[in-house]
């Protein structure tokens, strides 16, 4: 540090020195500073030393920069849209109606409070409440109807899908049953045939054993 302080005190042209060092001096500035370098050994030595520092700094390089994975973040509106999309139609309608009704009620209550009994439309608070209640009831009925239609459609679709599956499974089992039945019939027939042979055999034996016709 003593060395650097000595230079600093000896000559106060540090800004010119770095400007010259990094090649940002104008032609005129360059000429002036080079003239100064001829007279000032300290600045000359410092310039050389800084040149070595720059060479050393060049030793620290890195091979590759890792790729930055950038995914544009979603806006609040995108998130809201996605959330809304996750709910069925009837729930969306219900939420929107609720919100709309709340806004209307709030607006009207503010107006009502401000003007006392009536608001700018000339309606009483009771009339306003009736209108809002009717609007909410109408909307509820509409949503209920929509919900029922959606449910019926889902039910039909569900039944249709499962009906087809049921028919396919039934046909499969029916075919298996028929095969088993055929096998059993064949077995029975074979058994009957064997039975017939045995009977005729025993009938002969019977005749031979009891020629006198003793029936025992």
């Amino acid at each position, binding site marked *: *540090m003593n*060395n*650097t302080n000595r230079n600093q005190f000896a000559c106060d042209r*540090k*800004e010119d*020195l*770095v*400007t010259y060092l*990094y090649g*940002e001096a104008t032609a005129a500035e360059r000429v002036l500073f080079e003239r100064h370098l001829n007279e000032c050994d300290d600045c000359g030595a410092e310039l050389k*030393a*800084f040149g*070595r*520092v*720059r060479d*050393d*700094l*060049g*030793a*620290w*390089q*890195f091979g590759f*920069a*890792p*790729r*930055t*994975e*950038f995914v*544009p*973040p979603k806006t609040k509106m995108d998130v809201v849209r996605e959330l809304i999309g996750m709910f069925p139609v009837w729930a969306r309608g219900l939420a929107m109606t609720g919100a709309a009704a709340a806004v209307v009620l709030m607006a009207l209550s503010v107006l009502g409070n401000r003007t006392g009994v009536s608001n700018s439309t000339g309606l009483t608070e009771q009339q306003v409440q009736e209108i809002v209640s009717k609007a909410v009831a109408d909307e509820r009925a509409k949503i209920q109807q929509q919900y029922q239609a959606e449910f019926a459609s889902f039910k039909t679709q569900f039944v249709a899908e499962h009906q087809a599956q049921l028919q396919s499974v039934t046909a499969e089992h029916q075919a298996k049953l028929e095969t088993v039945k055929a096998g059993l019939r064949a077995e029975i027939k074979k058994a009957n045939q064997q039975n017939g042979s045995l009977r005729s055999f025993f009938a002969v034996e019977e005749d031979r054993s009891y020629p006198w016709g003793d029936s025992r």
Partner: protein
Amino acid sequence: MEISDDQIIERTLAGETDAFSLLVRRWERPIYGLSLRMLGRDEDARDVCQETFLAAFRNLRKFRGDAKFSSWLYRIALNACHSRMRKRGNVVEQSIDLEDDEGPRFELADDSAELMPERMQRDQLATQVRKALHALPPEMRQVIVMKEYEELTFAEIADILAIPVSTVKSRLYTGLQQMRARLEKLRTAL
């Protein structure tokens, strides 16, 4: 002809958000380099890179066209670096203590410096530079990094840091002096 930064910004602001990836590809290396040399750790540099581009994307509407986009990006990155340094108390990974009376920490066997392959010598020098740079105060380090590695002009650095050009030169001069002292001490120790 290559599409300009301003044109990409216009497209991004017009709703073509994927266009911003072009800016990321174009500037990720300089921003990573700046962060790595300011913080000294790859992991931190990667995080700062991510933070910088995310912040730039979110605040793109606030970007004024009168400045260069790169200058604005560098400023965001430097702020992220400073905030990270504050969080970890500006702890340097492994600093070089030049005032240590017990001598240097780098030791070479006998005359191995001459026998050492060039690549190893260069790697060792790079380590010394990295440590010497990290022992500098951040305001000097950032000026050296921007001038030496990012090759920005004095005026650009002044604009990024919102300080006069004369202050940039003065910090650079002092920073180089300190680097010289540290590196010379290490060189003689070897």
